[in-house]
């Protein structure tokens, strides 16, 4: 089986979508979800027998573009296809009541987002990464402006402006890389990047950091994130928080590990991550809009992931992969339940949680929040614990202190939310949740609990993945053979 299908099929779906309208109203939705199910099963089947595999496009690497399927990229592909499938299923149950006006376009956009996220993870050519960077960006801009209300359009414009600036810097970095090294293949660049003149190396690294920094939402380039999350609809935020950012984070660190295997800027990046976590959690404290609050919470978690990745060692990367896994699933639960809540009460103000009358939703959201906080027995705990442990082993106690402080602040507002949810309310009106949604929420919550209680289910796989991600030698030999 071929990894190109993950990208080719969604593209094909997008291109032939005008055909579907001829077969009735629901065809697009059904075809899209079936395709996502197929892709998820495909990634699972690849997972059973995970062998590193290079997929060649047109001509052999290192001259041409190629896709590298390793354990770690397979982890991300499986995660993305799974979450996208869950999102689609949720949307299918949601659209029965309030269908979107231009639904076909919505399905095209989410599939393009999936294709580009997978492409970012698989691609081994830096200019190809730029192209996927743009596809993901452009579909995200449209998704965030989709409602066409003033605030949605404002969010879209802000997102687009920052994205366009980011892409200028990224192209600049790629141009300098090509001019100095003469290749676009990550493996070839990796072989000679460290031998570049010191200043050029720093310039390229900074340009890459700025280019990707806007997209991976790292302090101080993340000023637009909360606006975009507030302006966009809640279910679209699921995609931003669970899929898009994670793909960018992976590709950024993939490039970083390949280019600077000695970890030259490691300590700087560790503090950058820790500080962006702290800043995000401080700002989150005073938020009164739920979407905005969870946007800042996402920023905090991304800072944590950034720190864990930046340590550039086995335990750190394993911790980062754990947090990515837990955070993606928890944020999917949170934003999808926010969609349900917002649809019912028509507001995202924090006070709405007091009116919430659905024990099922309350419990599910509680599980997600506890996992985000990193309470033992939930999936978030393992990652946070590993990260903090590794920071302590590395001797960067200041960063560890910052993260602990930030977690404390995180706990403050999460427990405020929990207090709001479980305050005794007089509301008689029960929030009905239909069966499909219940199954989705329950299965996601169960995954969080299982992984948290029995971490050995995934720990071996994640450890192998972390090793693969850090192992430049095998990546290079795979592409150069």
């Amino acid at each position, binding site marked *: 089986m071929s990894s190109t299908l993950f990208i080719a099929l969604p*593209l094909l779906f997008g291109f032939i979508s005008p055909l579907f309208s001829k077969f009735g109203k629901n065809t697009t939705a059904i075809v899209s979800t079936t395709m996502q199910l197929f892709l998820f099963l495909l990634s699972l089947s690849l997972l059973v027998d995970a062998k590193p595999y290079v997929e060649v496009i047109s001509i052999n690497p290192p001259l041409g573009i190629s896709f590298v399927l390793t354990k770690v990229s397979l982890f991300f592909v499986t995660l993305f296809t799974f979450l996208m499938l869950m999102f689609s299923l949720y949307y299918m149950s949601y659209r029965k009541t309030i269908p979107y006006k231009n639904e076909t376009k919505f399905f095209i956009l989410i599939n393009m987002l999936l294709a580009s996220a997978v492409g970012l993870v698989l691609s081994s050519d830096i200019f190809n990464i730029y192209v996927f960077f743009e596809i993901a960006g452009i579909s995200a801009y449209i998704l965030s402006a989709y409602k066409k209300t003033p605030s949605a359009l404002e969010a879209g414009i802000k997102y687009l402006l920052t994205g366009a600036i980011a892409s200028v810097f990224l192209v600049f970095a790629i141009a300098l890389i090509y001019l100095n090294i003469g290749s676009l293949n990550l493996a070839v660049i990796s072989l000679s990047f460290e031998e570049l003149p010191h200043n050029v190396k720093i310039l390229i690294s900074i340009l890459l950091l700025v280019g990707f920094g806007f997209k991976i939402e790292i302090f101080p380039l993340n000023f637009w994130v909360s606006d975009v999350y507030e302006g966009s609809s809640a279910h679209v935020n699921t995609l931003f928080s669970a899929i898009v950012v994670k793909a960018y984070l992976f590709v950024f660190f993939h490039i970083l590990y390949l280019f600077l295997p000695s970890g030259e800027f490691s300590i700087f990046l560790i503090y950058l991550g820790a500080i962006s976590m702290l800043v995000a959690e401080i700002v989150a404290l005073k938020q009164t809009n739920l979407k905005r609050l969870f946007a800042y919470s996402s920023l905090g978690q991304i800072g944590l992931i950034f720190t864990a990745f930046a340590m550039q060692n086995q335990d750190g990367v394993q911790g980062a992969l754990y947090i990515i896994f837990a955070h993606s699933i928890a944020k999917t639960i949170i934003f999808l339940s926010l969609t349900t809540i917002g649809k019912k009460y028509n507001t995202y103000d924090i006070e709405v949680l007091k009116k919430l009358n659905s024990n099922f939703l309350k419990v599910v959201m509680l599980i997600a929040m506890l996992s985000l906080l990193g309470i033992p027995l939930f999936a978030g705990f393992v990652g946070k614990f590993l990260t903090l442990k590794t920071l302590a082993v590395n001797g960067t106690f200041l960063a560890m202190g910052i993260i602990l402080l930030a977690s404390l602040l995180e706990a403050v507002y999460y427990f405020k939310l929990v207090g709001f949810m479980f305050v005794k309310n007089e509301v008689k009106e029960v929030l009905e949740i239909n069966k499909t949604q219940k199954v989705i929420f329950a299965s996601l919550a169960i995954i969080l609990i299982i992984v948290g209680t029995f971490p050995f289910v995934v720990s071996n796989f994640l450890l192998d993945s972390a090793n693969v991600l850090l192992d430049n030698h095998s990546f290079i030999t795979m592409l150069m053979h």
Partner: protein
Amino acid sequence: MSLKRDLPTSTMSGFALSASLVLTILNILLHNIPNNIQTVGDELLKLNQTEGVANAVTTVVVYFRGFDTLGEIAVLFIASLGIGLMLDANKRCDIKAKSNFMLQTASKLLFPIIMLFGIYVMVYGHLSPGGGFQGGVIVASGVLLLLISFNEFELSHKVVSMLEMFAGASYVIIGLIGLLVLDKFLGNFLPNDVANMGMLLSGGIIPIIYIIVGVKVGSEMSVISENLIKRCEDV
């Protein structure tokens, strides 16, 4: 948070900030002028001798780095979809001002020539400068001329969306055929007679793909122009 509230906004400080940033970059670049090194392009030029077409840039765009072009098509497709979504098709109204007679006559005369030129650029993309992107946009600019001069002119949406669909889908399908036949996505599965290099019928799938790209770009750009022109004020 406003996008620019936290940044210095007065002219002087803006200039100082950007100047210091650019001067740093300039300093580094001037001290390390990239010298002519062996690049992947040299090897691709050698490979082009046996596998490519007369225009080496076309070979690189369409074949050696074909996946980038597929992604680029996807970007254009999504952008045109987004523009269509934003400037809603239901809110169309006729432009009140009638364009003058000179413009109408001139565009009647010019339209076929522009079309011919666009198609020429598209079809000869593998032999001379030009190709699908440029040709497609030239064709779209011809359509734009008609849209400006004749208020009643409208694109047939059925035809345009069919063209778009056909072009996009056949690009991916050609890629998948390459995957089946040669085990390489977008592999050149048609015979490429290099002795004929410089003839119209040479290069295997390369000219075919570039024409497909042209059709796709032309229809996308026409739709974008139509959306931008015909969108009128809300009543």
